[in-house]
């Protein structure tokens, strides 16, 4: 694939799946500035990965897979950066903590961000409209593992949303 082909396909992918990519970034990063950086990183990762796209899965699955791989890496990188400045801290909270953003308007986004990484990936893909088989293909999991994670993830998401509701009242 030539450089121009890659650029054209990336532009098409962004036009078609840009909103999905933005939502992926939203589900991993609460800070708007860092979220923008993450979206840029995801875009660059897709640009680098596109020449290896063989059409085995749909382009949407391929793009979502690259985006999630990059986003999980972002969570680990953020942990590395914070490690340099502080000793200790709650690592699980790091992946979830929305405190840097101030008040958050979207309960569903915050709740998704509070899910464990393994559940978050499956739930986010499910909300994007992926089937169980497509999620399994994107994440390299067996379908029954996806189903199990979705059941548990949905249960946790429901609890988180109901907690948010009771906090508001």
């Amino acid at each position, binding site marked *: 694939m030539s450089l121009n082909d890659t*650029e054209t396909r*990336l*532009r098409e992918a*962004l*036009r078609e799946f*840009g*909103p999905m990519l*933005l*939502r992926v970034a*939203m589900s991993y990063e609460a800070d708007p500035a860092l979220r923008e950086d993450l*979206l*840029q990183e995801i*875009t*660059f*990762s897709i*640009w*680098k*990965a596109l020449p*290896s*796209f063989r059409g085995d899965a749909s382009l949407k699955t*391929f793009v979502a*897979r*690259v985006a999630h*791989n*990059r986003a*999980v*890496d972002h*969570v*680990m990188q953020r*942990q*590395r950066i914070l*490690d340099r400045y502080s*000793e200790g801290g*709650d*690592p*699980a909270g*790091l*992946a*979830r903590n929305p405190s840097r953003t101030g008040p958050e308007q*979207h309960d*569903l*986004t915050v709740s*998704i961000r509070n899910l*464990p*990484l*393994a559940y*978050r*990936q499956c739930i986010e893909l*499910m*909300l*994007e*409209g992926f089937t169980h088989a497509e999620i399994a*293909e*994107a*994440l*390299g*999991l067996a379908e029954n593992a996806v189903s199990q994670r979705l059941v548990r993830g*949905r249960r946790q*998401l*429901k609890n988180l949303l109901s907690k948010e509701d009771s906090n508001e009242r």
Partner: protein
Amino acid sequence: MNVDRELEQWRSEWQRRPTDSLDIDALMAKTRRRARQEKFLAAIESLSGVMVIAACLATATIFQLHALERAVFIVLAAAAGGFTLWAFQQRRRYWRHLPMDAHTLLKLERRRLHDRLRYWRVSVWVVSAIWLLTLSAAGTSHVLEADVADNWLASAVGVMIVLIATALWFIVVRKQTRQRLKKLEALDLS
């Protein structure tokens, strides 16, 4: 047909998230710039490798050297060549499109940390071995009252400084790695 109302509600709410901040032209421009930077860095890296190989080979062939010294420069050229190739391959290797879930990615990161720790542990052992060899060479040449005894002693002192620095760095890396592994475990379990 059984409609999952809860899922439909979440799905429509999720897909209604505002996406006004999406600027495709800006993303494309930044990606192009980043790609150019990567290419430039790769070119600089390869060029530096070629220059080091050329310098080693030139030194080995042009200057009047002892056979052992010449062999050292040829080995250095081969090592630099190997490293340049390895770095080039690493740049080309791309894994982000491979199907991996969060557990697998965290496992890879844990393996990377263990490898880093192993690398520095082996480095301490290798430098220790070199130091012991240099020290025994210094001792032997001192006993034999050879001319090079002082050179060996100076080398032993030099290697000892490197050994102390490597050991101290290993301690820092080990502490960092243990902390990071603990945190990764928490991420995986969370």
